[in-house]
């Protein structure tokens, strides 16, 4: 085995590059198989999804998506025949299984809850985080290191341990199962990440810009709005995406503190049930819709990823 590294004077030989490439590509392909399988399953019919051997080639169907968005009831063939012609593809698919669409499912409201809570908490966390990060970056704050450690340490608390008193507190305050309660909670969790990340970004903006602005007659506040914020846009956007992903993916708090009106998609998706157990194509369809925004964000973020996952400690 050659141990030449990319840094050595002797550049890695073409052969070692090729072997490394082959191993990495093999790993990448294997590791995305589960995701491709989710995507494929979302276009299978329920019988196809549990066929043995697993079907790689199959007749695509959007039954999973139909089942995801609707609730259905079983009816006699006579009753179904007595109905008028099917309206739309979903109606037709469902009738073939001797069922009729009874109404919309809870998926759409749960998905909207996810959107509202994720965007709401991200906005609050980034707003508070930007202010604090600027404060820590530019001013001599007494006990700054201790405060920063305190802010970060809140991120490390086990969610279930936090959830016990939060559950009681929210019950007293009437915040149980409300979007506001979840936004507050996710803001508190995300603000630690936002402060640490944004402090790193703002530290990188030269102080000379503000100083020049202040010599020109701007107040400190104006200098902050007009010179620092525009320069920090990339950092703020990256931080926002990290907060968004966290709030979007979060499960423990959502499962314990919401049950109905404010429930988000992660605790809802596993409860999608068809006749005789889990309706896997519908679960796969819900999972696919849920994961696509994250895939897009991952691609947008790939240059800032390292920074985000290490709280700004590693910057390359």
């Amino acid at each position: 085995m050659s141990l030449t590294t990319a840094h050595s004077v002797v550049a890695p030989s073409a052969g070692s590059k090729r072997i490394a490439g082959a191993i990495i590509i093999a790993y990448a392909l294997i590791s995305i198989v589960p995701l491709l399988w989710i995507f494929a399953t979302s276009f299978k019919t329920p019988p196809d999804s549990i066929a043995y051997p697993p079907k790689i080639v199959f007749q695509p169907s959007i039954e999973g998506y139909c089942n995801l968005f609707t609730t259905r009831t079983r009816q006699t063939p006579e009753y179904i025949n007595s109905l008028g012609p099917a309206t739309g593809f979903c109606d037709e698919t469902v009738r073939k299984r001797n069922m009729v669409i009874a109404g919309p499912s809870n998926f759409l409201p749960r998905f909207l809850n996810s959107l509202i809570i994720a965007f709401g908490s991200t906005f609050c966390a980034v707003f508070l985080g930007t202010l604090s990060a600027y404060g820590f970056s530019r001013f001599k704050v007494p006990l700054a290191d201790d405060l920063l450690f305190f802010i970060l340490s809140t991120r490390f608390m086990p969610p279930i341990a936090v959830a016990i008193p939060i559950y009681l507190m929210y019950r007293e305050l009437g915040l149980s199962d409300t979007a506001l309660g979840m936004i507050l909670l996710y803001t508190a969790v995300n603000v630690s990440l936002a402060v640490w990340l944004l402090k790193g970004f703002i530290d990188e903006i030269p102080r000379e810009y503000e100083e020049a602005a202040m010599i020109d007659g701007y107040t400190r506040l104006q200098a902050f709005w007009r010179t620092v914020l525009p320069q920090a846009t990339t950092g703020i956007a990256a931080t926002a995406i990290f907060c968004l992903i966290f709030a979007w993916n979060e499960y423990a708090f959502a499962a314990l503190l919401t049950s109905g009106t404010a429930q988000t998609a992660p605790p809802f998706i596993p409860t999608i049930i068809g006749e005789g157990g889990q309706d896997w194509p519908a679960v796969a369809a819900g999972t696919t819709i849920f994961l696509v925004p994250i895939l897009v964000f991952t691609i947008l973020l790939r240059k800032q990823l390292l920074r985000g996952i290490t709280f700004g400690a590693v910057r390359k």
Partner: protein
Amino acid sequence: MLNRTADNVARATPEPLARKVRGISDKGLAWLFISPTILLLLAINIFPLFWAIYLSFTNYRANRSNEVVKNLGFANYQRILGDQDVWIAMQTTAHFVFWTILLQTVIGFTLAWLIDRKFRGHAFWTTVILVPMMLSPAVVGNFWRFLYQPQTGLFNYLVAFFTGVPPSSFEMLGSVQLAPWAIIIVDTWMWTPYVMLICLAGLRSIPEYIYEAAEVDRASNWRQFWSITLPMALPFIMLAVLFRGIENFKMFDMVNLLTGGGPGSTTEVASITLKRQAFESWRTGYSSAFAIILFVAVFGLANIYVKALNKVKQR
């Protein structure tokens, strides 16, 4: 939008008030900027924490909030430390943390080291590898239940295909021997990219001239790896290990959806025990004490973590 608001404030504020705003000292501004965050964290994190500390000394039950609350002193703590189930849960957690970290570090570092060869297309394939760690552990964990189905699941089918054992002869989630490994596999699949990414940063931080000097001294490649590459990447590896350690110590979502702690309690990691005690048995006082013990443990780990962060930062 923020810019515009600021302009309006600056122009439209009546004179005396404007003078006041102008007159805010840097010190005042610093507190004005920092205090909202601190206040929020005090309200949502610290106040509940003190509440939990209070509850941990009582026999309070959240589902019977009208009952008289009795002060038990340290009885809850004593019971936890003597509770067989708690120790089993801690062992399960330790097993999970140890194996996931070992596998993720070895595989992650190897992948990073291979990517550092900078073969053609390495940036694209790195992004592909990173995808699993961005996804929701709960939603993905739930879907792995489908892959692990004994008769029809893809995982069992592929294992059967390559080893020849019948696919219905083993149940990854239903068997006492295999279930702990089922969660280790999913966690390793999700988080190896995380370790890889940090290791890659470590490898790229090693300055070229050190290798050049080693080359001049005719150090073998083997020697260069052990004397330069590994020691210089070590702070980064430690960072990844610590972070994964903390995260997996408090692991809840993926395991809860994959096995729910079962079969029996073979995959019942600490957070699952805590959830069962707090939200199923409603032993609020008792579980608060358990939560405090976990807090202290995580806080200790976090302390080490922040020190490691600062060490990496100095480079």
